[in-house]
């Protein structure tokens, strides 16, 4: 086994046992990036100098007997996390040369544990996309098949795990942006409950939906990463002041007597047969482990995608107004006068998907349309939330596919945004409801591409998801397969 194949907990043991130093681990990951990333394109920016300095500091901390779980562990960050002194692009030409003056809370918490930041990961521009193809820095490739997309928007975060280019990564999930790429790349991806992890220092796409979460090799690593970044932050008014459980300690709880619901609206005609088969096998496994399976209904599911594309784009149209060329980011050289500076800077700095969503959102908020679109969407959002709360009166967890199909080929859906949007049909409702969900490896399709299983939990029910996922993982080998690169 190579150093870059290790999970966090495996590496942590070796670091404590002095079988491995953080500098060695960091060098191993940097070398791996060097050797494969020209094919995968998971990274926008790699930071070897600062990473090695952090690794040295981590080694001193380990030597002093003061190691936390993440001390010395090489991690990658989606380029949506602002990092002090490290260029942060959000996948956009607009921020091609933007070097933030501060660290966000999640990054600061990783650093406080002594994690080593090896670089910034590729993503769809401003997290708008499901394939990482809208990045200004080129599409990320799926390590399982370089002609296939890794999903998105956190495609770099997932591809880096699948390609062994980071021991763990952080992504963000607004409509499935952690879970869908994790599913497509055969990783574990967790979207925590809205408010569980601070959004301070996360470049906003849709503020009421964005949430930070880990992409990892296995469930235990997800528990470690979540434990590191979760918790109340006075700098984020929407972060929730509720205690953070010891996620790692709770992993072994098992699923005996656990009530797992299957939402009928998620097991529809036309579901890809390979996806369907993986779900059936997973359901059978949970049954055999003593879980109780029952059908539930989430009746407003069919409105979720439309609702999402009104709320998310409305918020985005406002969130992205700050990119005006005045204080930071791209400013057009060609502009004369104020209005032209705005228009040209934004026309040149934003890509087509971002422009599409800004226009959609601006329209949805416009006088005369607000009630029909934005307000109506908020009402439907409430109904979708109630769907979940009703279902959770009957069951403890929901089990669904992450995506209706296995990963698609690069370019396949670019010409048809609606098809692209529909690939998030099973993940979007969770963001609208504000609750938590995880994608975990559950099989492979006939082309050898990964298929993910989604477990959806009650608000702040991450522990139940993690222990159910851990029970599944112990009985399966899917997460142990490696992409051949």
């Amino acid at each position: 086994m190579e150093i870059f194949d290790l999970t966090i907990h495996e590496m942590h043991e070796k670091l404590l046992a002095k079988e491995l130093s953080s500098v060695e681990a960091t060098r191993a990951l940097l070398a791996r990036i060097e050797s494969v990333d020209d094919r995968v394109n998971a990274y926008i920016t790699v930071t070897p100098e600062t990473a090695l300095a952090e690794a040295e500091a981590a080694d001193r901390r380990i030597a002093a007997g003061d190691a936390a779980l993440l001390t010395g562990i090489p991690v990658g960050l989606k380029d949506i996390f602002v990092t002090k002194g490290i260029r942060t692009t959000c996948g956009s030409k607009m921020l091609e040369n933007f070097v933030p003056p501060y660290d966000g809370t999640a990054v600061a918490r990783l650093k406080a544990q002594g994690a080593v930041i090896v670089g910034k990961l590729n993503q769809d521009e401003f997290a708008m996309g499901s394939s990482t193809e809208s990045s200004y820095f080129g599409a990320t490739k799926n390590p399982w098949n370089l002609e296939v997309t890794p999903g998105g928007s956190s495609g770099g975060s997932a591809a880096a795990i699948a390609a062994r280019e980071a021991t763990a990564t952080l992504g963000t999930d607004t409509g499935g942006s952690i879970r869908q790429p994790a599913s497509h790349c055969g990783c574990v991806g967790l979207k925590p409950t809205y408010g569980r992890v601070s959004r301070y220092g996360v470049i906003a796409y849709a503020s009421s939906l964005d949430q930070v979460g880990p992409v990892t090799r296995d469930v235990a690593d997800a528990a470690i990463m979540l434990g590191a970044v979760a918790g109340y932050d006075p700098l984020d008014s929407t972060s929730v002041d509720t205690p953070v459980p010891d996620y790692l300690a709770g992993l072994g709880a098992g699923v005996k007597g656990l009530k797992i619901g299957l939402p009928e609206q998620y097991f529809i005609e036309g579901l890809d047969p390979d996806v369907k088969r993986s779900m059936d096998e997973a359901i059978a496994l949970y049954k055999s482990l003593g879980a109780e399976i029952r059908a539930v209904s989430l009746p407003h599911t069919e409105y979720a995608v439309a609702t999402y594309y009104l709320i998310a784009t409305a918020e985005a149209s406002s969130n992205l107004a700050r990119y005006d060329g005045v204080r930071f980011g791209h400013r057009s050289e060609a502009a004369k006068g104020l209005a032209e500076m705005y228009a040209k800077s934004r026309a040149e700095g934003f890509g087509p998907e971002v422009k599409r969503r800004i226009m959609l959102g601006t329209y949805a908020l416009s006088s005369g349309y607000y009630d029909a679109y934005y307000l109506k969407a908020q009402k439907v959002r409430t109904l979708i939330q109630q769907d979940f709360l009703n279902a959770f009166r009957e069951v403890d967890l929901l089990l669904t596919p992450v995506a209706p199909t296995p990963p698609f080929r690069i370019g396949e859906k670019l010409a048809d945004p609606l098809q692209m949007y529909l690939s998030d049909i099973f993940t979007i409702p969770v963001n609208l409801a504000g609750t938590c969900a995880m994608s975990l490896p559950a099989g492979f399709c006939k082309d050898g591409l990964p298929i993910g299983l989604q477990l959806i939990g009650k608000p702040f029910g991450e522990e139940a998801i993690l222990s159910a996922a851990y029970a599944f993982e112990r009985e399966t080998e899917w997460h142990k397969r490696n992409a051949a690169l």
Partner: protein
Amino acid sequence: MKYQVVIGLEVHTQLTTDTKIFCGCPTRFGAQPNSQTCPVCLGFPGALPVLNQQVVEFAIKAGLATDCSIAPRSVFARKNYFYPDLPKGYQISQFDLPICLNGHLDIEVEGEKKRIGITRIHMEEDAGKLVHADIPGVGDNSCVDLNRACTPLLEVVSEPDMRSPDEAIAYLKKLHQIVVYLGICDGNLEEGSFRCDANVSLMPVGSKVFGTRAELKNINSFRFIKQAIEYEMERQAEILDEGGRIIQETRLFDPNTGTTRSMRGKEEAHDYRYFPDPDLVPVIIDDAWIDRVRATLPELPEAKRARFQSELGLSEYDAEVLAASRELAHYFEEALALFGQPKAVANWVMGEMTRALNEDGKGIAECPVTPALLAQLLQLIDKGTISVKIAKTVFDEMYKTGKEPAGIVQEKGLLQVSDSGAIEAIIDEVLQKEAGQLAEYRSGKDQLFGFFVGQVMRASKGKANPALVNELLEKKLKG
């Protein structure tokens, strides 16, 4: 045709919190450009607003002082528009769910009392400032100073209840007095701490249907508000007289010419695309919080004036003057606590003291004569140690030096002479010297009595006890 003007006012008051509304930067005026900024008030990617709770308390204070109801749940909304002084491309304000609703202020113009409705009061952040003129090294470019960005404001919106420029001014002065009294705004008009927009329209006298209004912006003094409204009334009347129609528009007041000019019409009006700010949670205020804030409210000018009249027996005028500013009222009451004669204290505060401060261009807070010193002075008069006339000399010395009155009296030998023997001696001297006048008096020119009093006082250098002088002189002349 004769027209009735209809005026509604929107006032922006800048709050005197130590820090900004959504970040921890200081709100101090006049610092180096962009020195009081951070990722939040610069609108940097990833930065998030956190509400300053003191702003909420100040808003509750303003609401309670203007008889508004305080909303148990109010919501911040984003007002979206592009401008270089607006870092995020939106202003965080309140829209359909403001913190205070349905209040009023009572004003008085030429003896007539009137109630002006307050539609709403809401919290919002200020924008930065653009500097266009002659900056070394930047040529004819404009510069952005974001020190003021994210400074807390309360916007107070009145009903269109005012019917003359004087009513508008009375309302503004009243509101100004209240926010300064509450200690939530420094009231400084020049620095823009209290800014006003006016909605002005005309309708035929007797009509109940309001005309089309123009919104006047950029008015930063009480004098200008009168000028702006009066100009606007003439402008609109002229158009209506010629059979024209008023266009709904925003007009900019130019203090140099006293006129208004069109800034943008209805067609160019922004569509602000308000929506609830997803970065902030609703502001929830329970009764307990309101009660806590209510307990910290100072006595407001109106209540104070009434109490000064009813409890202290001051005249309406004196009560009004003393209650007009919180500092002056505070001074008065401090001195009164140490010297319990309201009328005497009021006379000195409004007389000698105000005169000295005015000559000096100082405010009461900077007065070198503290309430305690003034009370000591009044005690000296009361005990007959010095005369009122001498007291004025002593006061001037106190004002100059900040010394205690007793020390000054001692030092300068200003003690009042109440020794009958000594005064009689002076009287004798005066009568001897003024033998001619004395003869005239004796022949029946009674009014010369005052002359002798004056001469005696002068001879004593003002120190003779005037009552005793009168008494003894009378005895001497008539005896």
